[in-house]
């Protein structure tokens, strides 16, 4: 029997009165994924993460982590799971180290033996004796990661880990996440920072108004939205006429001397041969790949205006 996936939600719903914060969300995070959970603010990312961690009860649907349901199995469902939602919070009147010791004691097992190690990993060893009340935002985020690592997690849930960090802090956070992923930890990372997701994640779910509008492999998403080309030739008009009659070429548009079109790679190859035979010189032919940002905006804004008008 294959091991159950680290995260599987089925038809997960959370309602607050009339507001549907999470609307029939199906998420599956597989072992080894760095899974990006993307969406604009207020899309329901944090609410979903809260349900995953058992902090709030779903209105309907189910959450299963490594085969266990937090509502049924309680704290045991969080074995091997760690993370934070909406920024990690600590006791400001205790030192960083005392905070970790407290959490390690609540974790039991050998968590307390890892305190020094995790402080080193997040580069907080020299400030561990200071009260958390005096920590900067970035230090608290790093202490949050340290607190998560105490649990030696197989699954790490991180809610906007780089939010509010300065550029150097963001870079460090990304490097840390990469390192943890390389160590074999499955990571579910919510973010509205597209560059972060593009750099770190192999799979993504894009959520809008509580609903998943895309779920799958990031590279496939980018590829599916690509397939466009930009062409500059010695004779744009003749080239346009030729492309319009070329099989497998669609969406031909002439824009300021540059042609844009959609095609599969083999149709593009045939087109370049045809252009050469027609003695039309090719100055440049560039495949156009969509950025995650374009896709994200397309997926999260399409229809939004219409829905608002209807509301």
């Amino acid at each position: 029997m294959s091991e159950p996936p680290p995260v599987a939600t089925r038809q997960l719903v959370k309602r607050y009165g009339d507001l549907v914060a999470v609307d029939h969300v199906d998420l599956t995070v597989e072992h080894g994924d760095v899974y990006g959970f993307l969406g604009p603010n207020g899309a329901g990312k944090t609410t979903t993460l809260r349900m995953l961690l058992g902090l709030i009860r779903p209105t309907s649907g189910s959450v299963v982590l490594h085969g266990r349901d937090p509502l049924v199995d309680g704290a045991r469902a969080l074995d091997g799971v760690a993370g934070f939602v909406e920024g990690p919070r600590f006791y400001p009147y205790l030192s960083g180290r005392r905070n970790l010791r407290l959490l390690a004691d609540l974790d039991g097992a050998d968590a307390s033996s890892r305190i020094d190690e995790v402080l080193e990993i997040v580069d907080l060893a020299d400030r561990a004796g200071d009260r958390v009340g005096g920590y900067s935002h970035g230090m608290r985020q790093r202490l949050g990661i340290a607190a998560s690592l105490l649990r030696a997690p197989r699954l790490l849930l991180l809610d906007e880990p780089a939010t509010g960090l300065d550029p150097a802090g963001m870079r460090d956070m990304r490097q840390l996440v990469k390192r943890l992923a390389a160590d074999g930890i499955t990571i579910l990372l919510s973010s509205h920072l597209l560059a972060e997701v593009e750099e770190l994640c192999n799979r993504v779910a894009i959520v809008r108004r509580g609903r998943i509008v895309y779920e799958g492999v990031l590279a496939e998403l980018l590829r599916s939205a690509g397939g466009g080309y930009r062409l500059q030739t010695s004779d744009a008009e003749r080239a346009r006429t030729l492309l319009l009659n070329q099989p497998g070429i669609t969406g031909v548009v002439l824009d300021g001397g540059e042609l844009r079109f959609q095609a599969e790679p083999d149709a593009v190859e045939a087109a370049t041969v045809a252009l050469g035979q027609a003695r039309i010189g090719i100055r440049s032919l560039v495949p156009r790949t969509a950025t995650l940002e374009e896709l994200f905006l397309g997926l999260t804004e399409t229809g939004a205006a219409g829905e608002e008008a209807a509301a």
Partner: protein
Amino acid sequence: MTAVYRWEVAKLLAQKRTYLGLGAAMLVPLVFVLVLVFKAGGPNDIPLGRYIRQTGLATPFVVLFFMSIWAFPLITALVAGDIVAAETHNGTLKTILTRSRERGEIYAGKILAAVTYTVVAVVAMAVVGLVAASSAWGFNDLTSLSGSTVSAAHGLGLLAASLGIYVVPMIGIAAFGLLLSTVTRNSAASVVGTLMWALLMQLLGVLPGTEAIRPYLLGTQFEAWHGFLRTPPDWVPIVRALWVCAFYIALPLAAGYLVFLRRDVAGE
């Protein structure tokens, strides 16, 4: 369970409000003794008040009486009303609820820590009162409420027993504070609400027409210790305090526990 309780106590020890409460509990008997050392007269119309200069043993009893009206309820509410609400407010509740402990265990740890603080506050008051008053007036025999003389050693035993029964209604107040702290998620509202509730119980006890319910009010149970100071001991108020308080303790704790187990822990 031990680890949860130990850390709940450690958190209390790291917070100013804990010392504010304990400090107040110790300051009251100290001020009381100082004033009576320098001024003539005394609280003659309250139990044991007229024997205040006869032995240091009388002071803790007299202060128990004074502090039951609002000081001890306030000291108790200060921590019990805050212990869940502050964690909700600071967001640390979600930090500890995403570790390897069941919610019930965390709540039980908080109950025990609040009870510990309450007991410590009462004992601290008594110890400071006893030491201060004994150094002023000596550690002599005590005159019981029935007028008989009790040896100082026996009087000390009676004080311990009295404190034991006195903390029971205090725990009733703490239980109510914990419930408010859990339900309102607001520390100030819980502290004030708990104090108001304790005052209401006292008020009901002195209003005309409440005689029938008076034995069952929480405020009344603060006088149960009088039973120990009678010869022979009067067990009726003591036994009643135990079972009446059992309700005042169990009902809010059970309600708070159920709310805590099921509630959504989201950002404030």
